[in-house]
C-alpha cells in the first residue's frame, strides 16, 4: 500500500509553556506543541481565544511573558531578526497597499525582503502567475476582488521563499471558490516542503489541515489530526436526526433521559447520547418524535463533527474551571 511521501520528522516549530499576559488577562495561558517540516498545522478557535497572539509571538513580533519557543531553529526571544528572514506572514488584513498597482505591491515587498535584482523579475512573474493576475498587473489593488487580493497577499508573503509560512485567518470573508483555490496553493506549498501554520474559526476549514490545535481562552484544549480528534474525544455516541421542524423537535429530543444534549445542526439535529452505544437513544428518539406527530426522515449514529467535539470540549473545560475572568480586549 502506498501512502503520502514520508513526512519529515524534522521539527521546525517548537513551543513550550508559552504565555502572554496583557495586564491581568492571560491571552495565551501556557501552550506547548511542535510542528514538523512540511506539515499544515491549524489553530482552530473563536475570536479572542489567543490564536493571533500566539502567531505574533512565533513571528518574533511580540515577546512572550513566559515560556520558550524555537522557529526554524531560532529562539523566539533572542533571534527575532533571524526568524523574520525565514518566515512569511500573512495577516487577516492582507497588508497590501490599495493605492498601488499589483506590480508595485510586489516590487515593494521584493524591496523589503531585499531580493537580489536577478531574482526579482523571476519571483514577480511567479507571483503574478500563481495569483492569476498576469493580465491585471497594472490594476490598482483597490479594485481587486477579495480572492485576488488574498492570493496577491500570499504571493507577497512568500516572495523570499520562506520555509515557514504563518497565515492568520487568511480566508475570512473570501468566497468559497477563492477559498478552495487558496487551499490548493497551500497544499502545493506544503508539498514543496514549506511548513504552514494557519489559524481559522471555520470548523470546516480546519479539517483541511494535517494536524489541528483547538485553542480556547488561551489554552490548547485538544491536539491531533482532525479525524483523530473526532473519534477520540467524545465517549458518547452522536446521532444525526433529519425531521420536520427541527427547532421544535429539539425540545422533545433534549428532554429524553437517553440524550445528554441536542442542538440544531445543518438542516437537522445532532443529539449526544448518554452512552457509547447509539441504540437506546435511537429507539427513544424515534418513539418520542413519532408520538408527538413529527415525520422523521432519518436517525443515524454518525462520526461526530468537529463542532460536536469542540462544543463538548468547551463544556467540559467550563465545568472543570469556574466560568473565568471573561475575555478582556
Amino acid at each position: 500500500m502506498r501512502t503520502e511521501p514520508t513526512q519529515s520528522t524534522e521539527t521546525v516549530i517548537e513551543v513550550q509553556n508559552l504565555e502572554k499576559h496583557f495586564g491581568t488577562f492571560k491571552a495565551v495561558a501556557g501552550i506547548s506543541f511542535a510542528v514538523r517540516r512540511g506539515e499544515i498545522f491549524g489553530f482552530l478557535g473563536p475570536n479572542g481565544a489567543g490564536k493571533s497572539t500566539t502567531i505574533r509571538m512565533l513571528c518574533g513580533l511580540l515577546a512572550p511573558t513566559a515560556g520558550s519557543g524555537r522557529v526554524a531553529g531560532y529562539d523566539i526571544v533572542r533571534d527575532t531578526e533571524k526568524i523574520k528572514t525565514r518566515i512569511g506572514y500573512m495577516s487577516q488584513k492582507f497588508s497590501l497597499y490599495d493605492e498601488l498597482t499589483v506590480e508595485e505591491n510586489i516590487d515593494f515587498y521584493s524591496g523589503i525582503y531585499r531580493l537580489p535584482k536577478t531574482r526579482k523579475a523571476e519571483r514577480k512573474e511567479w507571483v503574478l502567475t500563481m495569483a492569476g493576475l498576469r493580465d491585471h498587473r497594472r490594476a490598482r489593488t483597490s479594485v481587486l476582488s477579495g480572492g485576488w487580493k488574498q492570493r496577491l497577499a500570499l504571493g507577497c508573503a512568500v516572495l523570499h521563499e520562506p520555509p515557514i509560512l504563518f497565515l492568520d485567518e487568511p480566508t475570512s470573508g473570501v468566497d468559497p471558490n477563492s477559498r478552495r483555490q487558496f487551499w490548493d496553493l497551500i497544499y502545493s506549498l506544503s508539498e514543496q516542503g514549506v511548513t504552514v501554520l494557519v489559524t481559522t474559526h471555520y470548523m470546516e476549514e480546519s479539517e483541511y489541515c494535517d494536524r489541528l490545535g483547538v485553542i480556547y481562552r488561551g489554552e490548547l484544549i485538544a491536539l491531533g489530526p482532525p479525524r483523530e480528534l473526532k473519534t477520540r474525544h467524545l465517549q458518547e455516541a452522536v446521532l444525526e436526526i433529519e425531521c420536520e421542524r427541527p427547532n421544535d423537535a429539539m425540545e422533545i429530543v433534549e428532554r429524553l433521559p437517553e440524550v445528554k444534549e441536542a442542538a440544531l445542526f445543518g438542516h437537522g439535529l445532532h443529539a449526544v447520547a448518554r452512552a457509547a452505544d447509539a441504540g437506546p437513544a435511537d429507539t427513544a428518539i424515534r418513539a418520542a418524535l413519532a408520538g408527538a406527530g413529527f415525520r422523521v426522515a432519518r436517525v443515524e449514529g454518525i462520526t461526530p463533527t468537529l463542532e460536536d467535539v469542540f462544543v463538548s470540549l468547551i463544556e467540559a473545560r467550563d465545568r472543570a474551571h469556574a466560568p473565568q475572568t471573561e475575555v478582556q480586549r
Partner: protein
Amino acid sequence: MSAIRATGLRCTFDELVAVDGLNLDIAPGEIFGLVGPDGAGKTTTMRMLTGLLPPTGGSAEVAGCDVVRDVERLKEQIGYMSQRFGLYPDLSVLENIEFYADIYGVPIQGRPEKLERLLGFSNLTPFKQRLAGNLSGGMKQKLGLACALIHTPRVLFLDEPTNGVDPVSRRDFWRILYQLVREGVTIFISTAYLDEAERCNRLALLHQGRLLALGTPDEIRAMMPGALVEVRTSAPRRTARLLRARLAGASVGLFGDRVHVVTREVVPTQARIRELVAAAGFELLGLQAVEPSLEDVFVAVTASPPAAAAPADLSPMSANR
C-alpha cells in the same frame, strides 16, 4: 402582508453596482438568510432595507413602511444589529440596555420588567453589572441582540451576528432566534457560515450584487449540477492529483483527508475511481455518494474565473530554493 418586500432594489456607488435588481418577498415569522462572500452586497442590502441608505433604484417595504418615504415609522418597527453594533465598553450590561431604551423612547412604565425579561432571555441576568468591555465575544453578541430588541421590533435584521464566535455561543444564539420567531418576529440574517444558512426557512445566495438562487435549503441543494462522491484513500493529496489528471468531465477538490468529485454519472465515475486508485497502489478507505453542502452548491453555480485557476502543475517555488 409581506414582512419584507423588495422590487428591483438596486444600489450603485459611482460605477460599482453593489446590489443589482434584488427581488424579495418574505413572510412574517420567517427566518430568511442572506448568504454570500464579503463584497457580495449583503450589508448594502441590509442598509437599504433598514432605511439607512437610499436605494439608487427599485423600491422596498418593510413591515408595511416604505424604506424611503416612511423611514421614521420604519425605525420603530425594526431592530438592526450591525457588524459593529455600538456597545459602550465602559457602561455595564444593564446601562447599555437602558441607554438603548432611552434612544427608542421606551416608556418608563413597564420598563424594568421588560429589561429583566430581555436579560433573562439572553442569559445575561448574572452579568448585568459587568462592564460590556469585559464580556466575551459570545456575550457581547447576546447583549447586542438584547439592545436591538428593546423596542419589541416586528422585523429583526442581523448582519453576520455570529462571525468568529465560539460554537457554544453560536448554538445559544440560534436558540434565542427560534424563540423570537415563535413570538412572531421576522428575522433577516446574513451569514458567511453556510452550515448556519441551512437553519433558515429560506435563503438567498448573493454573488456580486445579484441573486444566484433563492429558496429553501433543500431547493437550493437540488440546484447542484451532478452528484458529489467522497473518496478517502491512504494518500489523499496524490489521489486528488491523480483524479484531476485522469478523471475526464469531473471536478475534483481536496478537503484535508477527503477528496470530493462532482460528477453527473455517479456509478461509472465510482468504478473509474476504484480502477485508478487501485492502479496507483493506494488503499481505498471509503467511496460513497454524499449529500452536497450549500458550499458545494455555491461553488458549483458560481463559475470560477479562468484567470484565477489554481496552477496545479506550477511549482510554487523556483528551482533554486
